[in-house]
């Protein structure tokens, strides 16, 4: 074989996350063709910004899905809404309270994650049902707390979330740092090994002495904390928390995991694919909007594209 660089390039198509990035590139090109070259940096910066929200919740969802069949966190939208609502109401536009506000948001995530896990563990409710019913509680709590009023974020926080550093949106930098940390946890740490083992065979993992319940608890808490961080950032970015702000992130968080080439049956996940999937989810909608297609066609094509990518990614496994 040639030198290591070429061989690692040749290995690229075998990476599970490869196709998500290929598809993102193609959709970007197709949209770019319409802009006559003028709007490409605009489009890149918008894609990076909005993909960040999907990527952060997607990473949380990925950890949960890695634990194997039946494990999914449906409380992500409600946790986002609750964290956004509580923290923005607490800060009430005051710059001095930005960090305590972040603390409150993360605490909401911590509490929600623990509550989710306790429902699953103590009441032996399947994760789908537990997180879904818990999400009604969180959503109701958010409604009760502030009756849907939008409180503006502190000026400095709004500037940070909408600003950029050397052309890269600040939010994207945050999202990439989280991705790098998550990659390390998943691929290089003992926790990541445990998690994959649990996802591949829980019984075998337990018999080999892995603290299965601790892994589960940490994963659900991690997912909720990432969701609450996203809620805090999204609310600050879009000028206030709204009761329906998390709605679309339920499907997106699961879609980016699937598109990113993670095994939906658990035990085999990767972090770069989440970013690839998040970029694609934004770019596909932008492309179809730019070509002036109606909502019906758009939904059909979005579904078709997701199926095509998953098929391409799994075809790779078959031939390898």
């Amino acid at each position: 074989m040639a030198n290591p660089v070429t061989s690692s390039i040749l290995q690229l198509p075998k990476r599970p996350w490869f196709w998500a990035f290929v598809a993102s590139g193609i959709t970007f090109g197709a949209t770019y063709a319409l802009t006559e070259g003028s709007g490409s940096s605009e489009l890149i910066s918008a894609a990076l910004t909005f993909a960040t929200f999907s990527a952060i919740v997607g990473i949380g969802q990925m950890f949960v899905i890695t634990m194997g069949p039946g494990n999914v966190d449906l409380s992500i939208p409600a946790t986002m809404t609750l964290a956004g609502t509580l923290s923005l109401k607490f800060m009430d536009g005051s710059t001095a309270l930005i960090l305590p506000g972040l603390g409150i948001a993360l605490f909401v995530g911590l509490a929600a994650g623990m509550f989710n896990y306790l429902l699953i563990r103590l009441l032996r409710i399947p994760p789908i049902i537990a997180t879904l019913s818990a999400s009604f509680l969180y959503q109701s709590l958010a409604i009760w707390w502030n009756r849907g009023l939008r409180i503006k974020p502190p000026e400095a926080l709004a500037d940070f979330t909408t600003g950029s550093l050397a052309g890269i949106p600040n939010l994207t930098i945050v999202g990439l740092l989280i991705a790098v940390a998550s990659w390390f946890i998943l691929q290089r740490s003992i926790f990541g090994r445990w998690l994959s083992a649990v996802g591949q065979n829980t019984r075998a993992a337990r018999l080999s002495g892995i603290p299965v319940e601790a892994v589960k608890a940490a994963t659900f808490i991690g997912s909720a904390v990432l969701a609450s961080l996203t809620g805090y950032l999204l609310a600050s970015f879009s000028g206030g928390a709204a009761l329906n702000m998390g709605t679309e992130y339920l499907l997106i968080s699961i879609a980016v995991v699937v598109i990113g080439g993670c095994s939906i049956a658990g035990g085999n996940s990767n972090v770069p694919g989440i970013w690839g999937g998040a970029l694609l989810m934004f770019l596909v909608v932008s492309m179809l909007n730019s070509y002036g297609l109606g909502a019906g066609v758009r939904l059909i094509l979005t579904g078709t594209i997701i199926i095509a990518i998953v098929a391409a990614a799994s075809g790779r496994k078959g031939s390898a």
Partner: protein
Amino acid sequence: MNTKAKLLAAVALVSVTLPGFAVADTADKRIALSNNYAGNSWRQAMLTSWEKVGGEAVESGAVAAADAFTTSENQATEQAAQIQNMILQGYDAIVLNAASPTALNGAVKEACDAGIIVVSFDGIVTEPCAWRIAVDFKEMGRQQVEYLSTRLPDGGNLLEIRGLAGVFVDDEIHAGIEQGAQEFSNFKIVGSVHGDWAQDVAQKAVAGILPSLPEIVGVVTQGGDGYGAAQAIKAAGRDVPIIVMGNRQDEMKWWAESRDANGYETLSLSIAPGVGTLAFWVAQQVLDGADVPKDLTVPFLKVTQDTLDATLAATPEGSVANVEYSLDDAKAVISAAN
């Protein structure tokens, strides 16, 4: 028929035939609100208005109860079950904001057959036995383009932000905007996105389509999406065009700030969430034996450059511009339709 029923029938007959006695007492009547969704600021304001006006009506003895019920999942099946529960609980009238114009017809018919008055508003139902307090959503769309034509006689490119795909209201407003674009043919809709009536979704969708759009002179909207659009356009470094707003406090605040900074002018229109209280009084009037036509129309609430400051001051932070209706307002709407 027992004596009591005969007596009641006689009283009813007298009160119907003698208009002077048409104030048949509704003090023992119980009205329920069946609401399909509570997850945004408009619905929250609607529920707050209902609580306030309904509570006062109960206190003053106009009705015996004005209870509000909201389904959690915004599903027609769930709301049909809710209506059936209300029938069993023996409410005299159900005021309904429906999840679907047709899917609840069966449950509504059951309620009518049980002698219950059903008044639908905002999300109306097509079942003939129910009353409808409808908003002319189509006109709401058309008027936006009409307004833009007064501001921009030369026309230009428009961006349309639609609501939630597949919802009746979205189709109606969209049809009105299309009609307006035909009527004022120097306007061209060059892009259309779905903002789901949410600022953050609108912001995301607009940011995605902007790079491929030529210069736009106006943005037509459906409410709850104007502020998000303004943020996205500002972030892209473009001049902010005339964005028609939807009465949300954050939209009006942004408008007032832009007006103070650079003389920004626009129009804002939506339905007041207090329309629920109009439906409440209409139900009370029907229970009272008044002759109420089945189809009523509620005017939409417009905020103009002149009324901006007053409306903004009266709107709670983060909420939506609102009007609560009184019994007299309801009577006026009824007599206008008669």
